[in-house]
């Protein structure tokens, strides 16, 4: 079933963008048609990740009502070489655009919500895409809450850091629950020793399941080779046998069943 998935987190630097890109690539690898949108208007990142300078229009323009979503989407299918179609929509990374986006009023945000909601019809139904993935800004701010309201499922990326866990707990009760969203937790950058054996892994999962009162879809260890790669390539494409890629495949399968 066609779905909009939002990746969100309480704090920044949890790995939302890395996981969004790799989740999208995982689906494309298996023949699904995917559209990945950068909704992190404060720190746009997808342009660097996809090394593209093809953007004539940005998601900023679509949300401003100055162009159609099809003008924003860049077809990276050939570049990525997966089985499915792969489109990305970029946020304008210029300082001027970031400043402009932070100064929007409530009425603009209300219209932006309407435009995000209509992507279900224009991207999923009209363009026949299987998944629309939103990479959002961290925390409670307009752009990320708009994305959550427009999404069918929310994947919350969190670390084991106490402040992150507490903030995520609050967001579960004061945000996702209120909008009745299908939500799953992705624990990222988990210290390897916490997952060193099946018993430890199970204990870890149980502990955090209880803390968040939500299913932990995956506990992803902290991988030094991901840090070493410096975001220069997409793991799910280049390293099919890597445990990180395998973790993404399990996440993709679970989200499909949501």
């Amino acid at each position: 079933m066609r779905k909009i998935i939002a990746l969100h987190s309480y704090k920044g630097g949890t790995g939302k963008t890395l996981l969004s890109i790799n989740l999208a690539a995982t689906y494309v690898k298996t023949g699904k048609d995917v559209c990945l949108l950068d909704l992190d208007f404060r720190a746009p990142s997808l342009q660097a990740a996809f090394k593209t300078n093809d953007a004539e229009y940005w998601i900023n323009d679509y949300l401003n009502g100055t162009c159609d979503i099809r003008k924003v989407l860049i077809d990276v299918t050939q570049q990525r070489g997966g089985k499915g179609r792969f489109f990305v929509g970029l946020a304008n990374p210029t300082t001027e655009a970031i400043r402009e986006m932070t100064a929007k009023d409530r009425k603009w945000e209300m219209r932006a919500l309407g435009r995000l909601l209509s992507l279900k019809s224009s991207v999923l139904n009209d363009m026949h895409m299987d998944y629309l993935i939103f990479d959002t800004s961290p925390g409670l701010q307009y752009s990320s809450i708009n994305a959550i309201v427009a999404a069918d499922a929310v994947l919350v990326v969190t670390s084991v850091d106490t402040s992150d866990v507490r903030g995520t707990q609050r967001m579960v009760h004061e945000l996702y629950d209120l909008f009745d969203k299908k939500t799953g937790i992705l624990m990222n950058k988990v210290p390897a020793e916490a997952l060193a054996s099946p018993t430890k892994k199970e204990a870890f999962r149980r502990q955090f399941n209880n803390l968040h009162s939500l299913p932990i879809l995956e506990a992803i260890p902290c991988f030094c080779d991901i840090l070493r790669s410096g975001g220069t390539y997409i793991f799910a494409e280049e390293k099919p046998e890597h445990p990180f890629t395998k973790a993404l495949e399990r996440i993709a399968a679970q989200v499909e069943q949501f």
Partner: protein
Amino acid sequence: MTMYKKLQEKQPTHVLERIRESLERLNEKMDVMIEIQKQNPRGVESIPDVLDVMTLLSLPDHLRKTAVTLCRLGHATADQVAEQTKRARAVESGYLNQLVFMGYVKKERQGRRAYFYVEKEG
């Protein structure tokens, strides 16, 4: 009373359900009026506001569900909203009118049908 008894004999649960829904709607309307009265002791007819996500978060659960559904549909009748929320048409009509009363939603008539919307497209 006799008429009520006749009705009750015919379709007791249906009639009671309708009475319950009407009472619930009345209660909710009164709550809204009391709240508005508290905030505007001098009396203002309506408080026009913006139905953004922060407002959606501040609404009670039952109204939030209606408001989010209307945001998705854009322009809809109570029937169309009820179809999505799986609640009774009469209940949705009550909630939509409450949102109109609160200034978040607008209403227009086209023939016999009443349409609700957050903002006119275009």
